[in-house]
């Protein structure tokens, strides 16, 4: 049976295609069977889809759940009493949210994997960390929203964690300056969600005309570009804009989701998103869900070796992307690389729908 400990201490971008495939085939078989035996909904779905759990081989043959199922169903593969954390996606008001149930083990694997992956980019030492968000966000600890969980998860990688925004999402310049004073000349880590950083950090600084001395700092950000597409901000202009207001020299975007917290996909210096030994992606054609050839756009399926308390190890997302290569990134990291184009476009169905369009 696949054990997480087998990979917990391996360098996260160290497995070549062949080794990784054999690891993932074995792990996927074990995880699929594990959830099949313990989660009734998962069992009914997988049985209905016609996957024979005994005769599967290639990684792309394994079943995947549509991500929206975590909104309509409470999917668990452990006893409810073992759940220590319930995470929710940060849907806007009125939308249904994903509910993800974590037991102690899955939760600790998430923390470990996240630390392993990010240390490959920022080093193994804990850096002083400036969180570009409001500390108010973490007031209710019982329900973790994706934003809160992301911040909390990343906070464990830093020290002297300081929040850059106040409860009203205004720049807390006193706190920021005191923080920078304490770590003058040293390396610091900035973390936040792409939109929050742009809206409340970059814009506020640009308007005030102030330039913060964070030269040499590293910025890690995630959460998607959707909200920024309206303002036509692309990754390059985002990085350049941030450099101009605070001098950060390295900017890493990441792709991740609350359904697979921990096994995030980091963007390297070459601008490619990387799968680690904890994760993989398959890009599928929407017409038949067959895997696309490298370079072709399709729906992104994400695989994570972390979820054991809920059947979230293989998920079909609603994002469009393309594979950019395997083991061939100039940055030297092994594993599959890919690019995300964005969320699939909503399209209205024909037919006798409701006259009063839902808003």
């Amino acid at each position, binding site marked *: 049976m696949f054990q997480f400990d087998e990979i917990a201490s391996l360098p996260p971008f160290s497995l070549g295609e062949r080794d990784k495939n054999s690891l993932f085939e074995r792990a996927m078989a074990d995880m699929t069977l594990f959830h099949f035996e313990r989660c009734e909904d998962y069992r009914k779905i997988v049985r209905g*889809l016609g996957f024979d759990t005994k005769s599967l081989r290639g990684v792309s043959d394994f079943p995947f759940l549509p991500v929206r199922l975590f909104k309509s169903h409470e999917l668990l593969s452990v006893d409810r009493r073992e759940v220590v954390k319930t995470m929710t996606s940060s849907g806007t008001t009125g939308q249904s949210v994903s509910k993800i149930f974590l037991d102690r083990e899955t939760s600790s694997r998430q923390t470990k994997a996240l630390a392993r992956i990010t240390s490959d980019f920022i080093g193994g030492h804990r850096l002083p960390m400036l969180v570009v968000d409001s500390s108010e966000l973490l007031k209710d600890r019982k329900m973790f929203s994706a934003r809160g969980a992301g911040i909390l998860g990343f906070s464990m990688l830093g020290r002297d964690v300081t929040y850059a925004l106040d409860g009203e999402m205004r720049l807390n310049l006193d706190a920021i300056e005191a923080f920078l004073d304490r770590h003058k000349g040293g390396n610091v880590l900035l973390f936040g969600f792409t939109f929050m950083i742009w809206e409340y950090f970059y814009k506020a600084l640009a308007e005030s005309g102030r330039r913060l001395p964070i030269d040499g700092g590293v910025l890690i950000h995630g959460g998607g570009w959707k909200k920024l597409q309206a303002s036509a901000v692309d990754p390059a202009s985002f990085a350049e804009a941030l450099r101009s207001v605070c001098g950060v020299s390295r900017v890493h975007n990441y792709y991740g989701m609350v359904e697979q917290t921990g096994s995030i996909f980091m963007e390297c210096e070459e601008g490619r998103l990387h799968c680690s030994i904890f994760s993989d992606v398959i890009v599928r054609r929407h017409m038949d869900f067959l895997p696309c050839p490298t370079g072709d756009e399709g729906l992104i399926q994400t695989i994570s070796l972390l979820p054991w308390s809920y059947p979230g190890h293989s998920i079909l997302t609603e994002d469009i992307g393309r594979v950019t290569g395997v083991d061939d990134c100039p940055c030297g990291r092994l594993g599959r690389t890919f690019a995300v184009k964005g969320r699939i476009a909503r399209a209205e169905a024909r037919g006798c729908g409701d006259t009063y369009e839902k808003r």
Partner: protein
Amino acid sequence: MKKDSVIYLTGSGIPDARPLKPYSDEACSFLAALSDLLSRHRNPPDVATLAFFCRRANIARLKSDFSSPDVRLGRGTVFHIAPSNIPINFAFSLVFGLLSGNSNVVRVPSKAWPQVDIVCGAINSLLERPEFSEFAHRIAMVRYERDDDVTRFFSERCDARIVWGGDETVRRIRSIPIPPRAVEVSFADRYSFCVISEESVMKLDNVAVARLANNFYNDTYLVDQNACSSPSLIMWLTGPRRAPGARERFWSAVWLRACEYDLAPIHAVDKYTELCCCLSRVDDVESVVRHGNLIYRLKLASLNGVEGLCGKFGFFFEYESDNIDVIASHVTSKWQTLTYFGVEKPEISRFVADNFLRGIDRIVPVGSALDISVMWDGFDIVRTLSRIVEIK
């Protein structure tokens, strides 16, 4: 109500010309002229369908079918609320309003369908002709964003209201009153199914199977299987002689036809999500067959709860039996259209009449599920929108 929130594509204010008799010469001539103008448009195909429906011969046939011993007149002003996602429906609703002798306010879809511009443009050019000038007081085509105040304004001034478009809309609009004397016709969510005889599919040659598949496609994929008359359930009637392969033959032909279907990525995901939801919910799943993402077939071992199983974008539930009557106990008032193939009409009539069904308002051959006419959803719309003058 803010006046500027309403855009008049045709007419102005509340049209309230004198009522006419059903199928009046005036209305028939107007529709014939409309048909002439619209028949120049081969596309979109639904505009061509409308033109074909309004042609003089068809209206004359409907008129001769409509025999009323009573004196009838239109009720006055009809307020039509058309669905946003069947582009041509607003025009059919208007046609029924005119045929029944009424003046009409039609709320067109707020979405910019080309059909709306084409039809309203044609009507406007007809209204400029002297012989149709009176119709300027019979037709107002309005466009407005969802706004209860505007809906209230028109509702308070109508003699009949037609609401197309599903339970949620009907509930919402019902909360906005119409005058005490006014009547309302509303079209709620419905459930439809299809009965196909296995043996008769086996008897078909390849051309005929392709034709059947094309008809089936038109009932379903053409409208994303999302019209209330599109079947979700396919009931296979088995005969004394087994016909193995009949179903695969049928579905292969449907697949060939559906290869043209433009399945949006989001709809592929919607459909897959719905399949997973069904699998977790339904205990009586016998098997699932997927032809890529074009066709999903879920075979049911029992009909319990079948009414709650609604497919979209090519997602069908199948059930087999040698006896059509087994379905009778599941039919509720929600059931609307039965499309059939290879079953004789007398057998179908017997099924409906002998089982004293609460539902099923339309029984049509496969391929005609979407054919709209003055009879719809169990109503004769022209009769409902006209009043009887009792003379003794």
